[in-house]
């Protein structure tokens, strides 16, 4: 080694800079390739006919994905209706009520469950939730309701862990001030703790939405994948993610480009949600 230390330092710095840039490069590549494949069809068929088109028959030249956009949002809100109250209550319980030992056990246990793969949730949905819906409520069981239930459970770890962090970071003095005024525990939580943690809690809901709208394998197993806008919670539906996963393996030509157009729409929705979630978290830090 005849090189002087400062040149070695420089080499290291350049290599590390290149490594750090790789994340940006990958993000760029992902955007570029999905856009390059997906955009031509928007130009050829027209933005309106794709986004607001009702008919998806890619081999016949129809690329309407409006029902799938609506379905994606429906299952996401369904998941939120089920997952958000449960998750928030769980987070409040963990941060305000549970003892230290229970907390030390429950929090990691709940986070471990975030690791259960989505195919397993989907499978259990098919075996247990779908027949329940079919038997007691009618329809085929492959439905908006069943999908929402499974997605609601799937977003629980996200909602719990992020709103828990927000609740815990509310300063103790806020609570003590409230208790000193003679407020009960619930009054303190409801009027002081939750409002202070509001932006973090909202961020947890939005990140949960991001997870639900991007979920694929569980959804195609339970949703029934029908190509129309569901009119009742017992109707089957097909989401944007499901559309891609169901047809990508055999699609060619314009059909494949149609799937990338679906991907473009999904990518835009996800980026907006992530931006909102990060913006919400930033506001909390600023305060």
């Amino acid at each position: 080694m005849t090189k002087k230390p400062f040149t070695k330092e420089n080499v290291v710095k350049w290599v590390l800079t290149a490594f750090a840039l790789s994340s940006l490069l990958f993000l760029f590549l992902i955007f570029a390739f999905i856009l390059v494949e997906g955009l031509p069809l928007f130009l050829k068929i027209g933005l309106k006919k794709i986004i607001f088109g009702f008919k998806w028959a890619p081999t016949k030249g129809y690329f309407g994905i409006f029902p799938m956009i609506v379905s994606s949002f429906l299952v996401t809100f369904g998941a939120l209706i089920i997952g958000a109250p449960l998750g928030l209550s769980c987070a409040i319980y963990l941060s305000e009520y549970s003892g230290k030992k229970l907390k030390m056990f429950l929090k990691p246990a709940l986070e471990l469950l975030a690791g259960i793969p989505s195919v397993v949730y989907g499978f259990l949905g098919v075996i247990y939730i779908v027949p329940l819906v079919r038997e007691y409520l009618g329809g085929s069981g492959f439905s908006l309701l069943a999908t929402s239930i499974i997605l609601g459970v799937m977003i629980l770890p996200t909602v719990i862990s992020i709103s828990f962090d927000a609740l815990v970071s509310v300063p103790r003095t806020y609570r003590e001030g409230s208790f000193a005024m003679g407020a009960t525990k619930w009054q303190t939580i409801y009027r002081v703790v939750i409002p202070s943690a509001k932006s973090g809690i909202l961020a947890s809901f939005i990140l949960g939405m991001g997870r639900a709208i991007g979920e694929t394998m569980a959804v195609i197993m339970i949703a029934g994948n029908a190509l129309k806008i569901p009119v009742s919670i017992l109707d089957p539906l097909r989401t944007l993610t499901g559309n891609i996963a169901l047809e990508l393996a055999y699609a060619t030509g314009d059909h494949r480009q149609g799937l990338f157009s679906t991907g473009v729409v999904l990518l835009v929705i996800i980026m907006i949600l992530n931006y909102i979630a990060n913006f919400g978290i930033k506001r909390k830090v600023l305060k």
Partner: protein
Amino acid sequence: MRINPRVIDTAVKIGLNGQAFFTVAILVVIVAVIFVKGCPYVNLGFLFSSPEDMGRHGGIFSAIIGTAFLCFLSIVFATPLGVGTAIFLTEYTKESIFTKMIRFGVESLAGIPSILYGLFGFIFFVIKLKMGWSVLAGVLTMTIMILPTIIRTSEEAIKAVPRNLRIVSYSLSATRWETVTKVVIPSAAPGILTGIMLSVGRAVGETAAVIFTMGSSLRVPTSLMDSGRTMAVHFYILAREGISMENAYATALVLVLSILFINVIAYYIMNRVISRYS
């Protein structure tokens, strides 16, 4: 009529207890069902024999090899990239527009759903780079997917290393790189390892991104250009096409147990680190 706040307080407490219990119960039931239904079919023969007749009979040996192949190589690629990025962000620069851009990139990568990784890997690695459905295409896609996790956890771990250690190292006239390799990384190693284990867990459970890049061949992959099948993909195909419920449950059990095992190790390492520094 005004209800006494203390009554509400008690009611809420009971309600929250119930909801928390319910949530935990759901998750316990999920694991329990997989365990009870899968247990009778998992034995050494199942683990060490290859699938026959599309997975209707036989075991999951080729899927285990496929999973191990995918995880190991993705970690080999993603660890230097991720840890290098984390070192760059914490030790080699000050906060600037440049670091903000990199952080934005990492956050965005973390938020992209796996099906879009699948879509990208399919068009870029499988088609444009002509890799076909192969272990290599799967590994490269997975590398990008787990990169954000490794960067974030490594960054946290490196930030938690006390400043004094660095100051002492510099005062002994160590260069920056010497300080990083001999002081910072050894102290941050458990935290970095946590990130790696969490990433392995993610790679084991991933389906959407893998099925469109690595394919779903049932043979044991012997080269990087072979297609292969991971346990998650195998389970998905068994369950979705109704090939065999017994084998589906058994595969699910092996899958869930390996992920829980990996994640438990990850959290165990993390907790030891937390107790060391606090």
